[in-house]
C-alpha cells in the first residue's frame, strides 16, 4: 500500500506536539451527541487549528511527536480523522487504545522519528517496505514494518470487514 | 414608518418555543438566535426570509414564555413587522420594547395569504395588500406606546427620560 499527501503538524499550547490527546482530535462537545461522521470530521483537531479541516486535501498525513491519541477509548477519534480524508498518521509513538482503534478502522499508523518532517512536506509512504520518502526535502525515513496482523486488518479494510470476510478472527 | 414585504403566514397560537426553541436559549447572540427563528414549524424560514418580509398569523401569536429571544430572533432575521389577529401579552410588550412593529388586524390570516405582497403604513394606520389590491385600516397605538415606539426601544426611552 502506497500513500501520498502533505504533512500537517500541530503545536500544543505547551509548545510541542507530544501527547496530543483524543480530546484534541475530537472534542467531547461533539463526539457524545453526533452520529454523523462527516459532520464529526469537520471538527477534527479544531482546538489546535480551527482551519485544519478546510485545509485538508484527500490523502494528507498528520505528523506528530510521541504518545499521539492518548486519553479516551472513543473510536470517534480515528473515525473523525478518516472521514476528514487523512490517509495515515506518522508519530514517534501512539497511545495503545488509539493504536488498536485506528487499525480496526483501517487507518494506518506509522512509528518513526518525525523530527525532520516539517509542515507542508510532501510525503510518500510505502507501508510494506517501511519507507517514507520526503519528496519536498528529498530524503528517506525507514520505519519498523507494520506487524502482519495489522497489515492483514488494513488489507481487509478494518476489523469489521475482516470479520465479514472470515466470519470471525483469522489472524494466524 | 412604512415597509413593504412578502408574507409568511401561520396559524393560531404560534408559541415562543416554535419561534425560538429552548434548546437555543443557552445563548443571547442575536445572529445565532435569528438562524433558528421559526425552525420547529418552518424549518427553512431563516434561509428563505428576505429583509422586509412580514409574518402574518392568527390569534394569540407569541404565547408561552417571556423570552425576549423570540421577538429578537424575528427582528434580526430581517422581518419588518408581524401582523396577527391578537398577540400574547408578554410577546406584545417585548416586541414594542425592542422596536419590532406588531399590528393587530382582525382575522389577519384569513384576509392575507401566504406570499402576498404587503405594504404597511404605520403612521397612517393602513395595511395595503398589493397582491390582492385591498386596504385595511388598523387601530393606532395608544399615545403612551406611540411614545415608546417613536423612541425606537424601551432602552432609548429610559435613556432619554433619565437625561431629562
Amino acid at each position, binding site marked *: 500500500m502506497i500513500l501520498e499527501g502533505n504533512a500537517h503538524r500541530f503545536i500544543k499550547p505547551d509548545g510541542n506536539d507530544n501527547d496530543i490527546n483524543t480530546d484534541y482530535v475530537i472534542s467531547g462537545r461533539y463526539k457524545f451527541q453526533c452520529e454523523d461522521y462527516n459532520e464529526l470530521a469537520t471538527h477534527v483537531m479544531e482546538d489546535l487549528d480551527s482551519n485544519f479541516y478546510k485545509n485538508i486535501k484527500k490523502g494528507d498525513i498528520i505528523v506528530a511527536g510521541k504518545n499521539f491519541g492518548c486519553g479516551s477509548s472513543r473510536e470517534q477519534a480515528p473515525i473523525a480523522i478518516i472521514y476528514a480524508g487523512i490517509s495515515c498518521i506518522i508519530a514517534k509513538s501512539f497511545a495503545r487504545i488509539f493504536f488498536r482503534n485506528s487499525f480496526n478502522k483501517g487507518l494506518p499508523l506509522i512509528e518513526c522519528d518525525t523530527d525532520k518532517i516539517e509542515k507542508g512536506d510532501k510525503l510518500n509512504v510505502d507501508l510494506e517496505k517501511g519507507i517514507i520518502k520526503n519528496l519536498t526535502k528529498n530524503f528517506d525515513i525507514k520505519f519498523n514494518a507494520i506487524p502482519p496482523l495489522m497489515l492483514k486488518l488494513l488489507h481487509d479494510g478494518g476489523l469489521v470487514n475482516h470479520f465479514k470476510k472470515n466470519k470471525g478472527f483469522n489472524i494466524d | 414608518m412604512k415597509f413593504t414585504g412578502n408574507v409568511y403566514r401561520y396559524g393560531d397560537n404560534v408559541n415562543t418555543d416554535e419561534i425560538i426553541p*429552548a434548546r437555543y436559549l443557552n445563548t443571547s447572540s442575536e445572529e445565532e438566535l435569528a438562524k433558528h427563528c421559526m425552525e*420547529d414549524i418552518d424549518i427553512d424560514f431563516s434561509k428563505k426570509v428576505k429583509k422586509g418580509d412580514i409574518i402574518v398569523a392568527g390569534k*394569540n401569536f407569541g*404565547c408561552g414564555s417571556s423570552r*425576549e429571544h423570540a421577538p429578537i430572533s424575528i427582528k434580526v432575521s430581517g422581518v419588518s413587522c408581524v401582523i396577527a389577529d391578537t398577540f400574547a401579552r408578554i410577546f406584545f410588550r*417585548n416586541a414594542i420594547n425592542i422596536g419590532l412593529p406588531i399590528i393587530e388586524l382582525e382575522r389577519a390570516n384569513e384576509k392575507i395569504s401566504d406570499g402576498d405582497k404587503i405594504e404597511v403604513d404605520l403612521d397612517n394606520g393602513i395595511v395595503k395588500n398589493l397582491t390582492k389590491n385591498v386596504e385595511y385600516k388598523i387601530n393606532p397605538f395608544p399615545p*403612551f406606546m406611540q411614545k415608546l415606539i417613536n423612541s425606537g426601544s*424601551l432602552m432609548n426611552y429610559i435613556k432619554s427620560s433619565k437625561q431629562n
Partner: protein
Amino acid sequence: MGMTITEKILSYHLKRDSVKPGEFIEVNVDIVLANDVTAPIAIKSFKNLGLKDVFDNKKIALVPDHFTPNKDIKSAEQAKILRDFAREYNIVHYYDQGEVGVEHALLPEKGVVVAGDIVIGADSHTCTYGALGAFSTGVGSSDVAAIMATGKVWLKVPETIKFVIKGKLNKWVFAKDIILYIIGKIGVDGALYKSMEFTGDTISSLDMSSRMTICNMAIEAGGKNGIVPPDDITKKYLDERKERDYIFFNSDSDAKYSNVIEIDVNNLEPQIAFPHLPSNTKNISDVKNISLNQVVIGSCTNGRIEDLRIAAKVLEGKKVNKKVRTLIIPATPTIYKKAMEEGLFKIFLDAGAIISPPTCGPCLGGHMGILAKGERALATTNRNFVGRMGHPESEVYLSSPAVAAASAIKGEIASPEDI
C-alpha cells in the same frame, strides 16, 4: 366604585385612590427577577444605559435556574454574566449553584416576595406569586433592564375575570387538575391580557403550594396575572418566612369583573393535557393506551414538597416501569433536603427513579432529560408545546404529580386509582 385585588395593589403603589382597566400606568416595583435565560439580555441592555448603579440592590432577584448545573460552555457563560453582575452591584437575592432552585418556588420559600407586592419577572410564570396575594406578572428582558435602572414598569391595568371554584375535590384530584380544567374550558387565550382571580370555597381550602400551582398556569390561558384572596393560610405561610411587612388586599363586593365563571369541582376527574397545547385537556377516564418513555415530576408548577409527598405516596413500595425513565426534580435545595429527610428519596430511588438537583431542566428542553425523536413524556410541568422537551417530533402530556407517579408505574398514562 368597588375595585378588585389587582386594581387595589396597583393603585396602592401609585399612591392613588383608584385605577381603571385599560389605563396605562407607570408604577414602582417591589421585586424584579430574571433567570439565566432572560437576565443576560437584560444586563446587556442595562449596561448600555451607562448608569452607575441599579435602583435598589435589595429589590432585584437573579436566579440562574434553567441550565444549572451548566450543561455546556454557552450556558456556563450565560450564568457567569449573572454572577459577575451580582458581584459588581452587590445583588442581595442572587442564588448560585448549590443554593439555586426553580425561581418561582425559591422566592416565596425564602420570603423574598410577599402579599401586596408588585413583582415583575423576566419569566412568563412569574404570575405564580398571585397565590400569596401579590400582583405578579412576566415581562421580557428589556423591561427588566428598565426596572433595574428606574425601579418602575409600565403596565396596562387589566380587566379581571373572576373564577368561583366550588365543591370538594375527590381523592387523587388536585389543584393541577383544576387549572388544567379551566384552561381546557377557556382556551390558551381565554384570559388574554386579563387578571384571573381565583376564589370560592375550594380555593380557600387549598394550601399555598396548590394555590401556586393554579396561579403559575394563569399565563397558559393568556392571563396577565393570577391572584388568590389572601387569608389565614396565606398569613401563616408568610409569617414563617417573610423578609418584609406585607399588606393584604381584598376585592370589594361591588368590584367590576369582565366575566364571572363558576366551576363545580365535586365531580372533577384528574385532567390530562394532550399535545401540543395546555388547553387540549381530557378526563383521565377518556385516556387510553398512551404508553410513555419518560415521566418528569418537578418544575415551578409541581416541584414543591407537597407534590413530592403525593408522588411518594403513590410510588411507595412500587417499582417504576422499566421502559419509563422517571425523573424527580425537587424545585429548591430546601425541598431537596426535606424530601430526603422525610424518606421520600428512599421511596423514589427504591422505585427506580432518578433524582436531579433543582433545575428547570427538561421542562423547557434545556437539559436533564431531553426526549428523542418519537418519544413521549408525561410531566407535571406547565407547557406541552411542539418540541418543548426535546425533539420536535416528541410529545409532552401534562398532569398532576399523582397521575404522573401512577403512570410511571403502569408504563402508560394511568389513574392513581388503578395502582
